[in-house]
């Protein structure tokens, strides 16, 4: 069953990749969407079929075959469904399906229609493999698979240099992260002796996480990072997450990745792939809670990235770039949550973010298409009367991401801010700083999103309706550039917007923080996740030892005891969050309604010159070093010299051999005898 969820999109990718070229767009669209639809239906069916088991913390393993088994090392192709992976497959398939539907409209007329959907289906396959794998090696297969698909889709317009450059950049930067990830898995294997997640008695395998739970936590010191212990494992794994989820300092590929078609940005670079890092950290939560130093690093990097990217987002003119930096910033939030031990809150934000960010990207795609491939917000404005549905749906997304009360983003963001304020496991001062950074980020987020909305939908129309916008080829495609006023998108694109908008509004009610409702509304999301995720409370001295598999009943009984004063504090903080969101929207509204084309500080517009910095400190030195040292000195003199020398030596040896290899049978016999005598002589003399 689980295998079918994964394999159906693969079959679709294979069909489209092999025969798609001869198919009509209609057939291609049907195949691509129906495979994902099958996965979606199966995912929902499985979830509701096993709901009780999943809520009870059961882990459903599905063994396919043993992939490699060498000595003590064993890897299976086997899948795992628990509440964490269940949540992931639900929103991946659901959001993925609607993005596929959107893309059938968006990509219409493109020459590579079949290629695009083959890649998209392949991506779904890889992403689902990543999430459903029950060990790190199979996860890595998916991890690399999504990286590959991301590369292929960013470089989809392969005739354009900027797309190729962006694709290469994404691939190479991700490689740095993957290196850390692989090292982390190696180290984990050498420590735990297994790369499986959990014990499975049916197959007689031990799980690394069960191993981790038996370890005593590392101390909170910087030296633990290099101690080669569980902290090192956690930090190395996080390096992988930094690459994949575009965190400081490896975030630089994600903004450039917007060179791909907009549905790709929505699916891969907002809703699913980039959250793989968060998934991995949450999945490995039992390792992280034993590595407080690593947790702190995760929290700090998350918070720093959140603020850093949000400020850049404030100053971008390209509508997709704003959303890209916004994604980086929101991913930072998720890591902040993980870093303070609120893995559940992080995953909840992944979940709500998938809806509203996919919605915002698709909305921007709709705008771009409506504007005949214009991405620059300076040439938009007043679009709400031309594209009413797009406007209404993006409105929902705007409020959701800004944390406007009762929209989905409000609940998840609020939870994260509250949890970072009380962050257990961290010194109090750190917790307060993290909360403050998060709160400022929330404010900036509301401002830049308001700016985006105002510049796009309100104000003066800054485009001419008679001719296609100049420089409109930034998203080249098969669409004919027809002049005329902006227009609303076709139904196949509008429908997904509406569905996702509903998600953006209501998804949050699955996880209303209990402090907020006074425990009256069950925080279903957290209850569901609890068994799959190790929680910090296990580590706290004085608390009753509770395994991550603790039944919901126990935890429910314990929850009020664990934060008796919490509700009051939580409500206060929620009030602060609401004020921040409203203030942000207000500032943005007032400021940008008045001065839509306000020039932001150059430092922000140029993205803190990070790309230039990397270019100067990393890329150029490598280039120069490669050219002047590696090539001109080492390659030419040393390597070529060695090779030529070896060649010389080899040909000298060769001529000696040739002398021996005289072709005369009697000399061969002589050598054989000589050889035998030498051996016997050696043995006798020994």
């Amino acid at each position, binding site marked *: 069953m689980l295998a079918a969820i994964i394999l159906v999109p693969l079959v679709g990718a294979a069909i489209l990749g092999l025969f798609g070229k001869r198919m009509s767009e209609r057939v291609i669209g049907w195949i691509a969407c129906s495979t994902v639809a099958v996965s979606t239906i199966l995912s929902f069916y499985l979830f509701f079929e096993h709901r009780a088991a999943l809520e009870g913390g059961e882990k459903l393993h599905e063994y396919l075959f*043993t992939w490699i088994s060498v*000595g003590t090392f064993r890897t299976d192709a086997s899948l795992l469904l628990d509440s964490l992976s269940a949540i992931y497959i639900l929103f991946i398939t659901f959001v993925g399906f609607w993005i596929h539907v959107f893309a059938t409209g968006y990509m219409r007329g493109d020459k590579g229609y079949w290629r695009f959907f083959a890649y998209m289906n392949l991506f779904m396959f890889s992403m689902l493999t990543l999430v459903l794998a029950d060990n790190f090696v199979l996860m890595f297969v998916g991890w690399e698979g999504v990286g590959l698909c991301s590369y292929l889709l960013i470089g989809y317009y392969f005739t354009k240099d900027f797309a190729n450059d962006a694709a290469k950049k994404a691939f190479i930067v991700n490689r740095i992260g993957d290196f850390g990830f692989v090292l982390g898995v190696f180290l984990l294997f050498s420590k735990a002796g297994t790369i499986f997640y959990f014990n499975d008695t049916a197959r007689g395998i031990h799980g690394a996480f069960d191993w981790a739970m038996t370890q005593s936590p590392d101390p909170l010191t910087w030296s633990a990072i290099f101690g080669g212990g569980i902290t090192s494992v956690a930090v190395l794994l996080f390096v992988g997450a930094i690459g994949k989820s575009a965190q400081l300092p490896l975030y630089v590929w994600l903004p450039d990745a917007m060179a791909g078609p907009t549905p790709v940005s929505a699916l891969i670079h907002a809703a699913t792939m980039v959250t793989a890092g968060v998934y991995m950290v949450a999945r490995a939560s039992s390792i992280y809670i034993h590595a407080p130093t690593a947790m702190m690093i995760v929290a700090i990097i998350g918070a720093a990235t959140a603020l850093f990217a949000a400020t850049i987002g404030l100053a971008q003119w390209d509508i997709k770039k704003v959303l890209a930096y916004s994604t980086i910033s929101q991913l930072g939030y998720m890591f902040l949550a993980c870093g303070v031990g609120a893995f559940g809150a992080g995953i909840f934000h992944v979940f709500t973010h998938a809806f509203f960010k996919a919605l915002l990207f698709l909305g921007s795609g709709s705008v771009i298409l409506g504007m005949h491939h214009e991405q620059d917000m300076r040439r938009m404005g007043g679009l709400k009367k031309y594209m009413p549905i797009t406007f209404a749906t993006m409105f929902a997304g705007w409020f959701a991401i800004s944390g406007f009360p009762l929209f989905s983003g409000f609940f998840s963001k609020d939870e994260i801010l509250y949890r970072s304020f009380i962050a257990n496991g961290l010194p109090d001062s750190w917790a307060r700083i993290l909360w403050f950074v998060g709160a400022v980020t929330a404010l900036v987020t509301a401002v830049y999103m308001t700016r985006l909305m105002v510049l796009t939908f309100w104000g003066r129309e800054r485009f001419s309706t008679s001719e296609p916008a100049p420089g409109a080829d930034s998203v080249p495609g098969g669409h004919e550039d027809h002049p005329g006023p902006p227009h609303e998108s076709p139904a196949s694109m509008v429908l997904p917007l509406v569905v996702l908008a509903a998600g953006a509004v209501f998804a949050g009610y699955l996880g209303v923080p209990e402090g907020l409702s006074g425990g009256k509304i069950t925080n279903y999301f957290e209850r569901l996740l609890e068994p799959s995720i190790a929680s910090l409370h296990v580590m706290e001295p004085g608390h009753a030892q509770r395994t991550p598999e603790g039944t919901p009943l126990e935890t429910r009984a314990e929850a009020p005891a664990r934060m008796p004063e919490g509700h009051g504090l939580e409500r206060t903080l929620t009030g602060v969050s609401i004020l921040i969101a409203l203030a942000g929207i207000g500032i943005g509204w007032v400021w940008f309604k008045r001065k839509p084309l306000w020039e932001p500080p150059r430092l922000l517009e140029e993205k803190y010159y990070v790309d230039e910095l990397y270019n100067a400190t990393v890329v150029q030195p490598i280039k120069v070093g490669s050219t002047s040292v590696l090539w001109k000195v080492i390659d030419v003199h040393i390597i070529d010299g060695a090779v030529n020398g070896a060649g010389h030596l080899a*040909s000298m040896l060769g001529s000696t051999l040739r002398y021996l290899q005289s072709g005369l049978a009697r000399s061969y016999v002589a050598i054989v005898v000589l*050889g035998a005598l030498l*051996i016997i002589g050696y043995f006798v003399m020994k």
Partner: protein
Amino acid sequence: MQTDFQTIATQAMQFIMPEGILTLFACAALVLDVMLPRDRKRFVAWVSLLGVGLAFASLWILYTSIVSKGTPRTAFFDMIVLDSYAVVFKSIFLIGAALSILLSIKYLEIEGEQRGEYYGLILFSVIGMMFMASSVDLLALFISLELMAVSVYILVGYFRRDKKSNEASMKYFLLGAFSSGVLLYGISMVYGLTGSTNLAKIAAALPIVASANFNPFGAAAPPDMRYLLLMSMILMAAGMFFKVAAVPFHMWAPDAYEGAPTSITAFMSVGVKAASFAMFGRLFLYGLPDLRGSLAGDPASGIPSLPGWALLLGIVSAITIVWGNLGALTQNNTKRLLAYSSISHAGYVLLGLIAGNQTGYTGFVIYLFIYTIMNLGVFGCIIALRRRGIVGDRMEDLNGLMKKAPGLTVMMTIFLLSLGGIPPTAGFIGKFYLFAGLIETGNPWLVRLAILAVLMSVVSLYYYIRFIRAMYIEGETEPQPVTLAPSLRVALVAAAILVIYIGVFPQRLIDLTQKAATSPGLKTYSYQQGATKPAEPATPPPARGMPGERDRQTATPPR
């Protein structure tokens, strides 16, 4: 009460059913050849292929109904044993034979030498190989070896009108006869020392003979029999080294490989080699297990301890790997180059015997299996280059192949990368097991040997990539198109798919070969206790001349 004849007729015959089928078909091939008109001779090839297929099927039936059920069965007065070791090797030979026959059909037609006896001889030599894998008696082993060898001598000289082919055959024969003599000499001495030609009995007698104080005649000064024992071991090893083409007994290989018909070169380089290794394993792992480590001396009376065959094999494999790879660097004739490459591969395979643990034995078997497929693949690609007026065995003949035959080029690339041991091809899995076996022992010398082997396989990439460079980068030097005969295409595609499949999903093959590596009678050695001691030879305990590192238990499954 059954007579011996009845026992043989009713029970023992079924154990050699695959060989029996092959014998029938080999004879049929010879007879058919006389009956068929000149232009219909290729029919014989299909008949032989059918014979190989039937033999494979009966082997499979034997495996599922008898071998996989339990203890190995012996027959013919303990001369033949049917265990998973034998079955896995026999399947290697049959696969090799089937692929070789497929490679030959078109090639022989181009050469104008399509005759039935060619296929008959291949089948006869395969029969010899199969008996080599299942014999556990020195005489039976020797006779099967000669059956294989004589058939191959003829096949090497099969192109009667070709001087090179004749020369190669003559050299191979002379040196082969010489080495057989050496081997027989060793065998006779072992028989003299232990009083038996049965490997199990020899193994049982060894601890007594190898003891430093062995004094059967009550002489005043006991004669040190260990020297004689070592002498005979070295002579037997020398004979086997010749057959597998290990340095310094490899001299025949480049000449014979170059001169022989390419299809026979392919067959020789895998079949003969794998069979000789099967026999090597039988002789040394089943027959002489106690000679592996050092032979204990008697420090009290000043008798030194002596090194065992692990050291001999270690030195020879190190030299072989280095020599084979360096020798291949400067060759321009592809057949000759591959001859050196196959010498170096013999060195790699020896590593599995040296390691002496489960992983090593698994590597030993798995590598021969994989090597058979990938090497036949490479030779198949070279055979494909044989066309009117072009022999196709020069490096230049590969130039610009990518433009002429992209499918063939891609398959050739797969085989070459596999020979070089690059993942995700099967060659990587094989090398991984061989090297892992050495490293698992924890013995510093063996680890160094593994490092040397890894370094030399890097060197080997140089000449494998020379092929690739010629095919992809160089421009065409002659315009003749390359077309693949259907039979050749089938063989190559099957081999390429297998190489990739095993590389990505090795588990099936590993399970199968692990069964062979855990056959009863194969003794494994654990270095764990001796790991802290300084290198070979490990210090022996005083009692009964048992090497210190010995693990007395017979093989147990690894998990």
